Every structure is written in C-alpha cells, then in structure tokens.
C-alpha cells in the first residue's frame, strides 16, 4: 500500500514533467521517471504476490527496453538539434508529414 502511494506520486512527477517542460531532454527525463515508477510497481507487486523472481525477470526486460528507447530518443534529439539548432519543442516546426 505504501509503495503504491509513492508509485502514484512518481507517476505524477513524470507526467507533469512531460506536460510542463518545453525542453526535449527534460521531457525524456520525465519519461525516465515514469519508467522508474513502473519498475517500482512491478517489484512491489511481485513481492506482495509472492512472485518476486518473475517480477525481477520482467524488470530486467523493462530495463533493456528502457535503455534502447533512451538511446534512440537521444539520437533523435541530437538530430533535431542539428536541424533546428534548438531543443525547444515549440520551435520544432520543420517535420515532414
């Protein structure tokens, strides 16, 4: 119960950061905090239900996906900076489509 409350608080921090920041790097950091909340939720649920080892296996998968996602996202952010010379989401106007 206690860890669930803090998972909700972490979720709020992550979503607020994504919604309120104009900087792409800060938005990615908000996404990272959301993933931290998910990680804590999986571990707490696994410990509560007595399936901690399964939860650990799932968390390892989550971490691998997280690393790949952040690496590609960082590449996209650097590309956006090269083309727009800015990381402000309001200035990203030259996207195709």
């Amino acid at each position, binding site marked *: 119960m206690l860890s669930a409350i803090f998972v909700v608080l972490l979720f709020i921090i992550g979503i607020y950061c994504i919604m309120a920041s104009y900087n792409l790097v800060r938005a990615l950091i908000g996404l990272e905090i959301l993933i*931290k909340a998910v990680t*804590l939720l999986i571990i707490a649920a696994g410990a509560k239900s007595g399936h901690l080892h399964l939860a650990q296996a799932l*968390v390892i998968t989550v971490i691998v996906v997280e*690393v*790949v996602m952040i690496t590609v996202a960082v590449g996209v952010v650097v590309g956006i900076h090269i083309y727009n010379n800015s990381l402000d989401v309001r200035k990203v106007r030259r996207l195709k489509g």
Partner: protein
Amino acid sequence: MFLDLLSLILLVSAALWTVMTRSLLRSAIGLALTSAVLTVIMFKMEANLAAVFELSVCAGLIPVLFVSVVSLTQPYTHQEILERMKSMFARFRLLPVILIGVGLILVLLGPHSQVQLPLPESGENTRFILWHLRQLDLLGQVIILLGGVFGVAVLFKERKKSA
C-alpha cells in the same frame, strides 16, 4: 519500517529535484540519484538481480547518455538559464502542491495502509525463470537491441553532401 518510509520519501524527493532543478546537467545527476535510491529499495525488497541491473544501467549508463546529449547540444548558456528560470518555476510551482495533496488524499483514503515494504516469499530462481520460462522475452530483448542499433546507425550515418 522507518527506513522504508525514509527511502521512499527520498526517492520522490530526488525525482522532484530532478525535474525542478534549472540545469539539465543537474537533472541528469538527479536521475542517477533517483535510480540509486530505487536500487536501495529493491535491495530492501530482496530483488537483488533487478537492483544490480538498475544500478549499473539506469544509474550508470543512462545519466552518461544524458550528459553526452547535453554536452553535444549545449542547449542554453548560464545567462539564458537564469532568464528562463522564472517561467520554469511558474510552470513547475504547482507540482509540489499537487504531490502533497495527492499523497495526503491517498494516505487518508487507504484503509489498510501499512508503513512497511512487502517482503517476498521464496520461489523459483530468477535465472531459471528468465532462461526457461520467459524465453520469448529474451528473444524480444535481442530484437529490440538490434532495432536500437539499426536506429542509431540510421540516425547518425553520414549523409552525402548535395552538389
């Protein structure tokens, strides 16, 4: 019991500092701190293998990636950061109030709140589950890793100069 509560409060405080600090470099360091505190919580819940992954990858590799992108892009000078501080604090000033409000509501509404992290029961080995029961997950991880490598290669490949 007290240490559990303290570590969880420290986790949320580190995350809050990460999103509210003005410098992106400090944000990256705050993210590493958040991961380190999460690692401590995982160790306390006896999730040792996941905690080691969290510490080495999330507290080690990912902040390095963020520091790299900050140094590559050089988003703002110190003067620009000071100028943007006011608007940033205006946007983020509601966040601590929302957190305290939601936290109080959840504590008051939770009928059986226990101030202790749940302890696990003994079961099968994590390695056995990962290698024998969740083999499809491993295949997915390999595919995602290859996809990530391909994506980065496409993003950073040298483009031909137009004549």
